């Protein structure tokens, strides 16, 4: 064996290159590796890993689902570029399919006018396309947008030509003019000569296609002749030019290169099942009874320990894996990566891309490992020492072994090319794998097939269709010179699917924008400023678009019912531990880290009862836990299933056949065994001590004053407070739903916001807080009381906190408020039911209420509610301006009073809280709806909870991130239309300090509209400036109540004015027609 002078050096660096192969191979004859170079390499690997990590999904453990933009890493790019780049990187779709947009066009959701408008703003200053000026680029593009054109390859065209009469007839969807042009011109044209180039054509089908049209003379003579004449002309035309060949950059991963050569060998299919098993075992949070031994040392170390033994059979491809892992044992992950990259023969220049693509190949798991690396506190049970480099190193080792195997498989086929390579079974071993794989890589990259443009038949067919659409006759086509033809063909091919879909999407958004802005412009004329009379009830809810309908129905109860919207944590960021919780969880937007912990305690008198119930519950829990684990074991399970398993028939039948009844029974039983004890919040802190986690145990009065004042100022509720102000958070309850927390409050970081509402009400009721507020100039009337509550958006119920703490004087108000909210809930349930196909359209409100309740407790229900689906708009402004406007549960409504915000400071902090939450929700739904496979997690049916941190499809798949199809099914993917009631200058000033929000606006991830507080004029932010908006229609439908607008309809509804909620206008103001 040849001695390598640098062996010791490299050994000391624990480089695997030497450690693995010094026994059976000559050492790699590479340039001298010295410490500095190695350090450099390690550095560049770390950089590459960090850059790859940006593109991984950011979704954390599924128990806390936070809606985020899956393209967060691309937010620095303009939206239109970002979606295309991301689509290429993730293999996903940038927009909806063209078919889908065309359906929307057909049913009038997109109009031709929208397409023309977006086309006009897309093309600037391009003149005529053809010399005679007959055709402009715009005409061509519009025709291609309005009419589907089949772009197929030669084989498909050949099939079409033989099976269908496309060449004998003109298209059915031609405009009358085009048709007339074609026909009138065609009739003048005499008989045509034979095609002189026919003999050149070696294509049998082309020849047949050329003869075919003419062979059947007779019936629809005119049309047939015109069309086939045109076809001849097109065939002649395309033969003048050569089809294009584009040399696309070959992929970097061996897997893709091998797949291009032999589609039967997909090394990822070999590696992934194993890798998924490793990752799942490593991050498991308590599903497996036997956790992975040694996982506290990290993924790479644990796997090498378990798998490097010589013991145990392997699969054919992984025969070399134990040895490879043995070599990596004890090495640092970065060294392993460096060595593997060397062996795989990837040049350093391609490392970045190689590592990015490699991490993304199993991006759900890689992303989860990255997430647990960055946020170990988010692990549901125990943090594991997750490191992305470990994952990549392990993955590369597996990849290399698989590629090695695959190359041997390929060796059989390409042995002509490997004269020096000994072949036959297991032949590759004579050559060091490093150089072997390196050669494989270079060779496959050289051989990577270039992409050929469409063949002549396909081009002729395309030209034939386009000419018809444009009214170009055979004579026109023949009249074109070579340059013009090239230009025309190029213009057609340049207007590719991505471009068309982008324009369709813009048109799709434009229609929605017009509909919404028209409604706002029209409705604002009816808006009356708040009257001086004191309202009956005021309710502060989350800005969530699901609360829009509840608020509307609440307001429809009468003029004295007012509502406000704000981020649903009500300005109280805290860690909260409820009486049933065993640990505290954060309730605030994810961008914040709370500094206070609040605990729910039993009332002093109920202490002993609480203890009793808790013990009882613990025992029941222990029993239930041991039953559920026991049923899976051998002995206990055998005995148990054999003799007591049949007892499960009771819950099985009850849960499946009578979900609502059994849930009610279950609840009653639970209430009986552990009767709810009265509780209180330990809201106020006593000392200045910190808890072990570094937070304060509760708030002090100063902090409470700040919180209450900020919130009331934010929503503009500083005057005219009613006797009873309800603060209502929201959450959602559903069963058999791994994505349950996706339905909770986004502003509470995927938790229910009831505790925040309760805490806020307690603070605002505190007389010391009020005293201090009065000193600061914000006086809350003495008889005003706050009450906290929580709205269950799934079952549509409101429950209240601390109602018995309110003074006797407010009892009646509380009762009335309860009744009002119950009424609003029933109406809300009724409105929601129109979206559920399983609820009949003529459902009564009472049935609707039962229906939604049943959904929330039904094991079989995959759509307990629809979450944020259909969200499309955010309106930040005074509610008086939108009150009485039916917004179809599609608008985030944030209360903001521009008249009291003198310096824009309130707007800044409102946007700081609202911007990330609303845009995150909007974009999460957007992309999950655009591509249910690439960005969403597809249908829930095969979902399989793994490790208590995520879901897989079936038994071994990547972790599925994003939202399930059932949730986004009815969602219209639209960028959020944010309307802010403020002048353009105020908006620009207010967003200036918010870099993240600015980026979203400038790069068009959200649409921004300014709504003038004085005049009500709207102006849309476009390319750096606000452009005044001119309404298309001045009127919107008017109905008496919401129900008369939505009754009997399932689809998205345009805004309407609901008279019941519109305040009576003073007689003096002029009535608008």
């Amino acid at each position, binding site marked *: 064996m040849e001695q390598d002078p640098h062996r010791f050096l490299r050994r000391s660096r624990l480089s695997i290159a030497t450690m693995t192969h010094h026994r059976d191979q000559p050492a790699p004859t590479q340039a001298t590796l010295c410490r500095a170079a190695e350090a450099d390499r390690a550095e560049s690997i770390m950089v590459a890993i960090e850059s790859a990590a940006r593109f991984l999904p950011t979704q954390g453990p599924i128990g806390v689902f936070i809606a985020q933009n899956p393209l967060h890493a691309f937010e620095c790019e303009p939206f239109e570029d970002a979606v295309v780049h991301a689509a290429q990187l993730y293999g996903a779709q940038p927009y909806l399919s063209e078919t889908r947009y065309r359906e929307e066009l057909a049913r009038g959701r997109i109009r031709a006018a929208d397409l023309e408008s977006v086309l006009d703003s897309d093309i600037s200053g391009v003149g005529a396309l053809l010399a005679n000026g007959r055709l402009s680029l715009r005409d061509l593009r519009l025709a291609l947008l309005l009419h589907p054109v089949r772009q197929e390859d030669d084989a498909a065209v050949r099939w079409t030509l033989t099976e269908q009469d496309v060449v004998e007839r003109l298209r059915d969807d031609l405009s009358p003019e085009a048709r007339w042009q074609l026909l009138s011109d065609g009739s003048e044209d005499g008989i045509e000569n034979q095609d002189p180039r026919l003999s050149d054509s070696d294509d049998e089908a082309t020849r047949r296609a050329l003869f075919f049209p003419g062979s059947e003379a007779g019936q629809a003579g005119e049309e047939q002749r015109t069309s086939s004449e045109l076809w001849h002309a097109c065939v002649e035309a395309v033969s003048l030019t050569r089809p294009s060949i584009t040399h696309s950059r070959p992929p970097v991963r061996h897997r893709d290169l091998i797949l291009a050569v032999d589609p039967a060998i997909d090394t990822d299919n070999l590696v992934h099942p194993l890798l998924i098993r490793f990752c799942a075992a490593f991050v498991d949070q308590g599903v497996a009874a036997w956790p992975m031994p040694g996982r506290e040392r990290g993924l790479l170390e644990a796997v090498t320990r378990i798998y490097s033994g010589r013991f145990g059979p392997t*699969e054919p491809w992984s025969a070399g894996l134990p040895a490879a892992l043995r070599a990596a044992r004890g090495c640092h992950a970065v060294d392993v990566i460096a060595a593997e990259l060397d062996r795989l023969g990837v040049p350093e220049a391609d490392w970045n891309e190689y590592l990015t693509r490699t991490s993304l190949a199993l991006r759900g798991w890689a992303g989860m490992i990255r997430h647990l690396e960055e946020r170990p506190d988010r692990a549901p049970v125990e943090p594991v020492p997750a490191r992305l480099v470990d994952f990549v190193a392990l993955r590369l080792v597996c990849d290399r072994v698989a590629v090695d195997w695959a190359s041997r498989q390929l060796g059989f086929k390409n042995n002509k090319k490997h004269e020096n390579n000994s072949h036959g079974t297991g032949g590759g071993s004579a050559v060091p794998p490093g150089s072997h794989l390196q050669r494989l890589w270079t060779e496959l990259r050289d051989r990577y097939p270039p992409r050929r443009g469409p063949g002549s038949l396909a081009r002729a067919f395309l030209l034939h269709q386009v000419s018809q659409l444009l009214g170009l006759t055979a004579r026109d086509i023949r009249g074109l010179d070579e340059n013009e033809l090239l230009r025309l063909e190029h213009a057609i091919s340049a207007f590719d699917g991505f471009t068309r879909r982008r324009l369709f999407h813009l048109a799709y958004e434009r229609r929605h924008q017009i509909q919404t802005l028209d409604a706002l412009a029209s409705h604002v004329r009816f808006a009356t400023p708040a009257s001086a009379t004191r309202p009956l009830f005021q309710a502060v809810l989350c800005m969530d678009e699901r609360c829009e309908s509840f608020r509307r129905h609440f307001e429809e109860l009468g003029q004295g019912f007012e509502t406000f919207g704000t981020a649903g944590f009500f300005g109280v960021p805290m860690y909260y531990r409820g009486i049933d919780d065993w640990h505290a969880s954060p309730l605030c937007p994810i961008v914040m880290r709370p500094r206070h912990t609040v605990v729910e305690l039993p009332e002093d008198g109920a202490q002993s009862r609480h203890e009793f119930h808790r013990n009882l519950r613990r025992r029941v*829990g222990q029993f239930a836990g041991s039953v559920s684990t026991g049923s*899976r074991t051998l002995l206990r399970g055998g005995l148990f299933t054999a003799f007591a398993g049949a007892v499960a028939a009771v819950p099985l039948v009850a849960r499946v056949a009578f979900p609502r009844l059994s849930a009610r029974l279950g609840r009653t039983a639970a209430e009986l065994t552990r009767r709810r004890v009265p509780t209180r919040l330990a809201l106020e802190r006593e000392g200045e001590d910190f808890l072990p986690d570094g937070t304060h145990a509760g708030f002090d009065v100063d902090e409470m004053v700040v919180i209450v004042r900020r919130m009331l100022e934010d929503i503009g509720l500083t005057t005219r407070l009613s006797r009873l102000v309800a603060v209502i958070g929201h959450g959602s309850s559903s*069963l058999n739903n791994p994505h349950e927390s996706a339905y909770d409050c986004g502003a509470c970081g995927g938790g229910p916001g009831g505790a925040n509402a309760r805490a806020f009400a307690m603070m605002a009721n505190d007389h010391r807080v009020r005293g201090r507020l009065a000193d600061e100039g914000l006086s809350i009337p003495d008889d005003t009381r706050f009450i906290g509550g929580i709205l269950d958006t799934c079952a549509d119920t409101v429950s209240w906190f601390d109602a018995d703490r309110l003074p006797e004087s407010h009892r009646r108000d509380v009762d009335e408020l309860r009744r009002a909210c119950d009424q609003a809930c029933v109406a809300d349930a009724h409105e929601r039911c129109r979206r559920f196909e399983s609820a009949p359209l003529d459902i009564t409100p009472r049935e609707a209420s039962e229906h939604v309740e049943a959904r929330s407790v039904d094991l079989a229900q995959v759509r307990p509610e629809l979450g944020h689906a259909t969200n499309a708009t955010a309106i930040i402004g005074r509610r008086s301006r939108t009150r009485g406007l039916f917004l179809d549960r599609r608008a985030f409504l944030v209360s903001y009073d521009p008249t009291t915000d003198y310096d824009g400071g309130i707007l800044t902090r409102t946007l700081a809280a609202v911007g990330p939450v609303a845009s995150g929700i909007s974009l999460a739904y957007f992309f999950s709806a655009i591509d249910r496979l690439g960005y969403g997690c597809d249908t829930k049916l095969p979902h399989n909870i*793994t490790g208590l941190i995520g879901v897989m499809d079936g038994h071994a798949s990547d972790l599925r991130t994003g939202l399930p199809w059932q949730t986004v099914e009815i969602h219209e993917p639209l960028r959020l239309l944010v309307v802010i009631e403020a002048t353009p200058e105020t908006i620009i000033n207010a967003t200036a300090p918010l870099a993240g929000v600015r980026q979203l606006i400038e790069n068009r991830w959200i649409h921004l509209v300014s709504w003038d507080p004085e005049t009500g004029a709207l102006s849309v932010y476009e390319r750096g400036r606000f452009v005044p908006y001119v309404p298309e229609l001045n009127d919107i439908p008017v109905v008496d109540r919401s129900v008369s607008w939505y009754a009997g309809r399932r689809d998205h509804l345009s805004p309407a004015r609901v008279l019941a909620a519109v305040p009576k206008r003073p007689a003096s103001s002029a009535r608008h027609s």
Partner: protein
Amino acid sequence: MMTNHDIVSLLVTCQLAAPAATVALVGVPALLGRPPSERATALIVGGGFAAGFIAGVLTLAVLATRGFVPEIVHLGSWFSVGHHEASIELVADALSVPYVCFSTGLCGLVNAFARKYLHREPGFTRFFLLLAVFGTGMNLMVLAGSIDVLFAGWELLGISSTLLIGFFLERGNAVRAAMRAFATYRVCDVGLLTAAVLVHRAVGSGDFNRLFGENWPNGTCLVPAATATMVSLLLVFAAMGKSAQVPFSGWLPQAMEGPTPSSAIFYGALSIHAGAYVLLRCEALLEQAPLARLLLIAIGLGTALHANVVGRVQTDLKSMLAYASMTQSGLIFAEIGFGWRIIPLVHVISHAILRSLQILRSPSALHDRHELEAALGGHPGADRWALGRWLPERLQARFYRIALDRGFDQMVVGRLFVVPFLWLLECAADLERRWLALLGGSAGPGRRRS
């Protein structure tokens, strides 16, 4: 005047015809491109199961009044040559009728569940159609009075199971898992088929009553011990595949690719126990075949142990439940091997109910976990009985690897069965190529299998 026999005949036919009719009612319009609406589909299929269930309960009542004297229902004859006959016979006795009630009842429940669960899913009709096929096959198998009928039911079970594993046609994993299950089924079906041939040879008919009388569970074997042993061994082989016994167990966790309700009813409840049912049906034969019983005990206990160890390291809910099912199914095999009758039957039914509930509510794992944590006031500690905790570290890693690699089932089955089989096929293909070349034609380049 209808005799008791007529009533039972009618009811038993109804148990079979009701689900079979729903296959036609849903399948024919679907084939014509006009599938019935979701509501109608679920109602038709559910109605079929309900009718089958009611008929089953009535039969049970009728039989109970007569002290469970078996009734044989002769539906016709497939063919007969001389004194050799393949008849289509059903039997209503203390085994088949309760089992039919149980299986149609469970099918009905899953039908009700799936109606909401699959709402608006593109494969809605296909799912219910396959469920109806499954129900028909199940009833056919359970009520079978001859080994031919049993085989027909058995095959319907296999095909519906395969197609439901591959329900999501567009996903590679699902299709691969379906193929794996199908291959295992087919290999083990050889056992049943050969057993059928043997039975026909031995008694000139496939009827069970000629084989071991008709008085379940007290049948007496009417064939010589050698035949009984042979048939029993073949039946055990057949049952091993469908009930996922070692070494044919690898397909079961992979089969969790279909929609949750189908996983529940197939691999938690009915399909997984089909093998046990067949063995129970032929218990009289087993009685005469100690060798087969010993094998049964060995396989059963081996499977239980294997599944128990492997199940401990599974990190996803459905695989874990699959191995839990396998454990119990192994135990049931062993119980049958011990010659027990009622205990395994009760075990089957009891286990099926519990496990299908567990699989149906497997997406609730997080919810349940939170509830449990709240009740306990902390994390439920790791299993005190956790295997391997007390082993030295090296052995721990080794055992863990066995468990993580699922007892090397993939490799073992691959080496023992798949590789030789493929090699055989390769050889055959090669021979054919040479033969063709010899005949003068230039055979096209044969594609090597990878």
